[in-house]
């Protein structure tokens, strides 16, 4: 596969490790893509490739999670985040935003000459083994126009510590001039939801999790007076909360966001012809050590019949549940 051939300068593949304190990123970071104006708003989407949960099982003999035959895919939450980004970019290109009655091609409804001057581009960023590159290309086929792949090797211990991952991602983001960062709320394997708030804190940005919807506020991608804002809805516990957000912020999208698009063969092939930016980052020392694994699936059930008619059986059941302290 082509190695970012022809495009990025010194800041691209093989650049030295990022130092968080860098004021001007070395080599000006990955070059702005062709066609994006100097003021392009960059939406970065953090993606993680993980084994498909349905293909993973617990090996009792080895006390380990067996993912050897599992197909690797971009996690469902992450793909939802990418879809949110794709929709935002689409709406921006169509001159969308509240007040643009119906985004048609060429910004019809906004009036000639008022289509957004800000282009919005979507860049996917992921840290993982080089072999996952082919899986990540699906992102280029479903909304991302650039793919940045951190291939610095991560051993199991380092990968289990969210701070290591978040530090590396934040360093890479620091070089990329992000305007908005989106990610999935929970990865399929680590189920942590930690990387999002950690990256936000390291960047000094606010964080909102549980996002289910994001759209441009009035003024679209240009914004009123140059400051574009978004209307964001998030699930917090039993409530649906709405926020007005002025980026830069980090938004973590959960499973109830818009359904992710499937890549079509046509777009997939185009994705394989695009260059991928490969990056290196520094790996912080891990602070966690995984000692052992176990399964939570209850293997043996009591199979105890409770006799009697509905009301009596229910009363007996409730007594048993109280005894077992589950209610």
């Amino acid at each position, binding site marked *: 596969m082509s190695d970012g051939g022809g495009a990025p300068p010194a800041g691209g593949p093989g650049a030295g490790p990022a130092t*968080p304190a860098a004021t001007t990123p070395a080599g000006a970071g990955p070059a702005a893509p062709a066609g994006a104006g100097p003021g392009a708003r960059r939406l970065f989407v953090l993606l993680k490739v993980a084994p498909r949960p349905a293909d993973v099982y*617990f090996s009792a003999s080895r006390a380990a*999670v067996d993912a050897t035959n599992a197909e690797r895919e971009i996690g469902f939450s992450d793909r939802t985040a990418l879809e949110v980004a794709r929709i935002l970019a689409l709406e921006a290109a169509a001159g969308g935003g509240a007040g643009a009655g119906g985004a048609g091609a060429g910004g019809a409804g906004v009036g000639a000459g008022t289509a957004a001057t800000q282009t919005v581009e979507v860049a996917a960023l992921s840290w993982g083994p080089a072999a996952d590159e082919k899986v990540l290309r699906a992102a280029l086929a479903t909304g991302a126009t650039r793919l940045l792949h951190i291939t610095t090797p991560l051993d199991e211990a380092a990968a*289990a510590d*969210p*701070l290591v991952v978040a*530090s590396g991602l934040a*360093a890479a*983001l620091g070089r990329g*001039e992000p305007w908005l960062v989106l990610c999935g709320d929970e990865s399929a*394997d*680590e*189920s*942590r*939801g*930690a990387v999002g*708030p*950690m990256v*936000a*804190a*390291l960047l*000094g940005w*606010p*964080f909102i*999790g549980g996002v289910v919807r994001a759209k441009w506020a009035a003024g679209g991608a240009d914004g009123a007076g140059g400051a574009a804002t978004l209307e*964001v809805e998030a699930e*917090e*516990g*039993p*409530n*649906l*909360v*709405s926020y*007005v*957000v002025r980026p830069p*912020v980090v938004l973590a999208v959960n499973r109830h966001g818009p359904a992710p698009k499937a890549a079509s063969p046509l777009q997939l092939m185009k994705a394989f012809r695009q260059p991928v930016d490969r990056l290196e980052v520094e790996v912080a020392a891990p*602070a*966690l*050590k995984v*000692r*052992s*694994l*176990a*399964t*939570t699936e*209850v293997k043996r*059930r*009591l*199979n105890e019949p*409770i*006799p009697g008619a*509905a009301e009596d*059986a*229910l009363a007996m059941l*409730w007594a*048993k*549940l109280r005894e*077992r302290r*589950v*209610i």
Partner: protein
Amino acid sequence: MPDTRIIGELCDGCGECVRACPFFAVDVVDGKAALAESCADCGICAAACPQGAVAVPGGAAGTGPARGAAGRGAWVWAGGDAAGEIDPDAAAVAAAARAAVEVEGEPVAAVLPWEPAGGAAALATLGVDEVIVIPGGDQPAAVAAALAAALAAEKPRLLLGSAGAAARRAVAGAAALAKVAFAAGVLELEVSGAGAEFTRLIYGGRFTARVSAAVPVACTLDRRAYGRPRAGGGAPPLRTLEVAAEGGAATGAESGGSVTRRKVGPLTQAVPLAEARMVLAGGPHLAPAQGAAEAFALLERTARALGGAAACDRQAAEAGLVGGVPVVDAASGATIAPDVYIALGLEGSPTHNGAVARAKVVVAVTQNDAAPIMTGADYVISAEPMAVLQALAKMAGVA
């Protein structure tokens, strides 16, 4: 150069230190333990060594912690979602924190980014020994930075947060800035000496991982790790901690943006299915087609009244019986782990049973002796599912 030393004459090469070290800094070489440069003097190996063969600076051989006077107490993030609010689960988390440090007899403090709206009375319900107010208010980035600075200044051994959104944001963010070990979704927690061991959920809760780390440790808890809040006690003392909040400077460029919280409305289900501790699920045999709509409406009301959530299986959903009730199914719906799962009139296909395999107690209400759910149930009631639902409704006080 680490200050920790192995006492060669006492070491028998058992390897317990190797297993315990969170920094991979010990190995057994030629039958004796040997420390590497990366040793952080945390003292966990000393605590783990059955021979007392590890000498730790600042303490006698075989004791920890190594950080001198630093590292005391447990903090609980108590800030709620909106300004002035207290996290509704803070008291339960405080109870869990107390249990974790109980043996050490250390204080438990609640940390807030604002003075609580309810004043002293609100603080009394927390069950903590003191309340610390840090700057930050309703700006998430400032809160994380302030909490990180507070951690560095006061050095508690433990920082816990609830499973809620505000806690995750604050605790994980602060941990990142203060470079404190962090884990989310923690089920069990043990703090001893300079180390902590905890169990957390991975793969969406299907498996657990036992993890060790050196203190200080920050965690957000899974709901099942909440403790029972203590009643009584007056309002704890409140103090304000002035810390300079330096935000992350990874970009060195612009500072973050802003968020303004606007309206709040309830989600459709009072308790989201994924968080419900009791789930009532209806299957295709709950009611005949004509009565299905009312039956599922009754199911939802009853579940709500019992403080839980309603669900259905894939078969019932495909037969078009269920209205908006969510589907429980490993392949095409939700996988859940409630404390009690009551299946009314459902067969129990393999994908359904897989989705509820982690429930603590499964109750099957079915008159079909050969239904696959029978083998996957703890209790089986062989009465008519509708009759049992009506009895449940009556018990819950639903019309």
